[in-house]
């Protein structure tokens, strides 16, 4: 049993199939980069894996459990498109809120620890609405890592981060992977994602174009995967 298993997932918006028969799994301690151009279905797939949307067909399991069950949700940390933080609460209050919702034994300590790890301890009492975009993103990273989840689902996590913050996030992700946590990153920023990834999945127009190990060739030439697999599926005879 792998920590993340996606089996035959379809998702329709009306008659339009946004995802078509997607199946893959992620091994423990692996980091999978979920790649694809705009509209390929990356966010839809990530939301389904996170249990935020239902698949029209197919099944997702997290650590062998149905992904909407409480054990599965307790095991997942998600960083979505929005930062999922309350503007009118302080950084500390936001983290303490989520620490309490995740039932952490010492919510205050967990909040302080992750404020320190993301370099936000000096602004812990500042309201989130006063934060810059980069600070919000770092706080969102802290929220996603707060309960030390077994599975991390990250949608465009490097967006709005400066070089230092990208380095910080990559460091946190490396630590998580070394600890045996499983990571799924959806991104356009190929180089940052491929540096971390052990596996790659490419979506093209809602279809699975490639899933497998990240090779050295992909790292040296991030565009290679799109040229090799992406364009073949974009050909007119395969668009239907």
């Amino acid at each position, binding site marked *: 049993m792998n920590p993340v298993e996606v089996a035959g997932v379809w998702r329709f918006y009306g008659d339009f199939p946004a995802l078509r028969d997607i199946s893959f799994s992620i091994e423990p301690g692996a980091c999978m980069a979920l790649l694809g151009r705009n509209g390929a279905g990356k966010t839809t797939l990530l939301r389904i894996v996170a249990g935020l949307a239902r698949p029209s067909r197919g099944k997702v399991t997290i650590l062998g459990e149905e992904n909407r069950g409480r054990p599965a949700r307790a095991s997942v940390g998600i960083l979505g498109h929005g930062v999922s933080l309350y503007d009118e609460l302080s950084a500390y209050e936001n983290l303490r*809120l989520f620490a309490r919702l995740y*039932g952490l034994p010492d919510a205050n300590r967990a909040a302080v620890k992750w404020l320190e790890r993301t370099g936000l301890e000096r602004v812990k009492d500042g309201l989130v609405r006063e934060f810059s975009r980069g600070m919000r993103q770092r706080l969102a990273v802290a929220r996603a890592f707060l309960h030390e989840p077994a599975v991390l689902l990250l949608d465009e996590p490097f967006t709005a981060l400066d070089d230092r913050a990208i380095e910080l996030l990559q460091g946190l992700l490396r630590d998580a992977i070394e600890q045996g946590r499983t990571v799924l990153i959806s991104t356009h920023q190929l180089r940052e994602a491929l540096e971390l990834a052990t596996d790659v999945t490419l979506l093209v127009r809602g279809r699975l174009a490639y899933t497998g190990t*990240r090779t050295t060739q992909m790292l040296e030439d991030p565009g290679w995967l799109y040229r090799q697999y992406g364009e073949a599926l974009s050909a007119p005879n395969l668009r239907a």
Partner: protein
Amino acid sequence: MAVPAVRRSPVRTEPPRLSFVRQALIIAAKDLRSELRTKEALNASIAFALVILLLFSFAFEPTQEQTRRMSGGLLWLVFAFAGALILNRSFARELPNDCLDALVAAPVSGAALFTGKALASFVLLLAVELVSLPVFGVFYNAQWTGQIGPLLLVLAGGTWGLTVVGTMFSALTVNLRLRELMLPMLVYPIMVPGLLAAVQLTTPLVMGQPAAADLMIWVRLEIAFDVIFTALGVALADTVLVR
């Protein structure tokens, strides 16, 4: 440098052992704290309630007898419209920054999320009612403190009914562009039995008169309404929140 994949057994995170009540209270406390920081819905709702009470008083100058007959209806009209402002914010508060995603992804049951949000709206709406009552007493010459205990019970019952129905539809309409319009249009028709009961029970009590024994049917209706819609909201919360 890529981190090499190491085959190992997956890390496990223990699911939290939070009770339903605790989860609901955490959500309610968060909503109340957020609202008290901005006071967006509370200020609008209180101002709206007071303005309607004052305007009605000046426009119609009701006699003591007219006030006695219409007091319950007037008050619940005001509470229902003022309540829509609070209930609209219940789930709309989660829209900026996609906060609802983080709540739905957390190991909190949809039922606890619904109950917490309903509790927060209930407290806020009750606060609006408690501010409105003295104003009503002054401008309509009503002895509303005469039956304060039963009156508060009726207000609590009616407000809970309004809150659970409103919270349920607030979740349903949160992603609609015209949610401010849709919420009242959906809530008020369903609220008719609950509002009728609340109006019938409030009318004598707010004038300081005891409720007659023949009003027991309305008490039963109010309780049944609250129980049915609370159960429906709790049962349907997960279906409404994850689509």
